[in-house]
């Protein structure tokens, strides 16, 4: 069955395909035909027990009917509408738009993403021109050399009776300075050429890294081998990594990945993870590793389906997201600040205290995930240096972890601006959405 449109549209398509009448299906699952009609036209949300019952009646899996990729599409459209409030986009009919015109909706979202990427590129270039230490140093170097040449040339031109010894010294200085100026100008031109093209093709180094990791599925088979290739060779072969900063970030990631793989070999780790129901605490004990390393290793497991994908988010002491491995149903913000209720931030305030909780993402489907979070301090500069904090949050789909889907869950969102939980106590700014959960 093709996965087009939203949940309601899929239900209608599936029901029609197997020849069930709407009234018959409604009666089977204990709802009125008019309510089912609203569901099928995406006017009412559906999840949990009712979705399971309908899927059972339609002889299919709930996941085949539930929303997945559309969540990201809806978030992108909401972000676009928020950024252009004067257009009066019909946000209350956004589900209908995505359901009836998925192609145009996708086009809109893609154009919005490209527009955002271009804006980021412009900001990055402006920032580079204003603050880049290489540019600043190079400019000063070039201007100092020009100053030396200009002063020396003026002396020679304006002092016809100059002492021969001084004349010889100034001539030598000018020859050396002009050669140095040529080298400096050449290096500067090459630097600007390389960096400008790299920055324009992808907005930020972090996004280049995200694009590359997304393309390789956050898993590196080459680094699982006993004799892996050099990380530099892997980076050089990655077309998404253009800027020097992105390559440096990728090298850091690969080095860490290899170290984790050495301590937790894939074949053993995968089996142990399955047996432990993906509990990082049990795996940390089993392999004698810290929780952060186990989180990374779990997130690097190859997944055969979206339902098996394990997500991972990391942030530094300022709360800035430094690593994002997304997963279906848990949309991660690209640019804005994340939801303050994420257990990630709870862990950040309590270093070395693990936090385990079930979280429920706001929005259609209201999927649940088992989250594990921990914040680990380090002293890379020794006892006298600053304490550096890194917090990580592992997101395991509730079904994969074997966790009970019922019970109390922490209500979370993606980011305040596009979160429908209007009455959230942690809200820092108004949402553009109406209450939907």
């Amino acid at each position, binding site marked *: 069955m093709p996965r087009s449109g939203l949940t309601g549209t899929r239900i209608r398509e599936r029901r029609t395909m197997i020849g069930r009448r709407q009234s018959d299906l409604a009666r089977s699952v204990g709802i009125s035909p008019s309510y089912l009609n609203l569901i099928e036209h995406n006017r009412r949300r559906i999840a949990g027990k009712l979705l399971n019952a309908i899927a059972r009646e339609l002889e299919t899996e709930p996941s085949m009917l539930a929303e997945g990729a559309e969540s990201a599409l809806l978030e992108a459209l909401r972000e676009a509408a928020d950024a252009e409030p004067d257009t009066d986009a019909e946000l209350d009919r956004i589900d209908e738009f995505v359901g009836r015109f998925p192609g145009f909706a996708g086009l809109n979202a893609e154009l919005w993403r490209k527009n955002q990427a271009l804006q980021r590129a412009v900001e990055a270039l402006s920032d580079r021109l204003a603050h880049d230490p290489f540019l*600043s*140093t190079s*400019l*000063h170097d070039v*201007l*100092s*050399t*020009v*100053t*030396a*040449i*200009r*002063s*020396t040339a*003026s*002396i020679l031109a*304006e002092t016809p009776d100059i002492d021969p010894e*001084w004349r010889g*010294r*100034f001539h030598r*200085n*000018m020859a*050396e*300075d002009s050669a140095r100026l040529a080298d400096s100008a050449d290096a500067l031109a090459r630097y600007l050429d390389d960096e400008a093209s790299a920055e324009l093709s992808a907005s930020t180094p972090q996004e280049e890294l995200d694009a590359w990791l997304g393309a390789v599925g956050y898993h590196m088979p080459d680094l699982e081998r006993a004799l892996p290739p050099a990380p530099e060779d892997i980076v050089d072969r990655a077309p998404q990594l253009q800027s020097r900063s992105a390559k440096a970030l990728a090298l850091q990631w690969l080095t860490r990945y290899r170290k984790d793989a050495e301590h937790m070999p894939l074949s053993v780790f995968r089996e142990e993870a399955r047996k432990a129901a993906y509990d990082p605490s049990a795996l940390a004990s089993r392999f004698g590793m810290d929780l952060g390393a186990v989180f990374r290793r779990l997130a690097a497991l190859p997944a055969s389906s979206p339902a098996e994908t394990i997500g991972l988010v990391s942030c530094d002491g300022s709360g800035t997201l430094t690593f994002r491995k997304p997963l279906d149903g848990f949309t991660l913000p690209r640019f804005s600040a994340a939801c303050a209720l994420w257990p990630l931030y709870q862990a950040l305030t309590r270093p070395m205290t693990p936090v385990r909780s079930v979280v429920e993402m706001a929005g259609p489907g209201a999927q649940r995930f088992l989250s594990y979070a921990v914040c680990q301090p380090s002293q890379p500069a020794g006892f006298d240096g600053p304490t550096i904090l890194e917090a990580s949050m592992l997101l395991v789909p509730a079904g994969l972890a074997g966790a009970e889907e019922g019970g109390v869950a922490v209500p979370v969102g993606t980011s305040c601006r596009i979160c429908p939980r209007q009455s959230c106590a942690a809200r820092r700014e108004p949402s553009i959405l109406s209450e939907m959960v």
Partner: protein
Amino acid sequence: MAKRVMLIEDEPSIIEAIRFILSRDGWDVTAHSDGSTAADVVALAQPDVLILDAMLPGRSGFEILRDLRGRSETSGLPVLMLTAKGQGKDRALAEHYGASRFMTKPFSNSEMLETVKVLADGA
């Protein structure tokens, strides 16, 4: 007795050119190239005018200027700050830390000579 000017600059060709220009006009010129020791050297030498480059190895010219303004023996010293053209923030920093004058590179010899004279005369 010749007036004394001290030049804190790490570019040898600029040092030679400025030394030639000012010496020919009767100035006693000394130069120093290490930013990290510059403030102590200036405080010890007590020149009549200081020419200070903004970007130096070891310590920036702005930090040196701030240090000098905090010492009683150099708090009123006339300082000509050399910054690079196009670096607007450098000019703002020079003013903030109390430079008497600033000049952007590249500058002309006559402009340099005239500015040093003005500073020495206390204008």
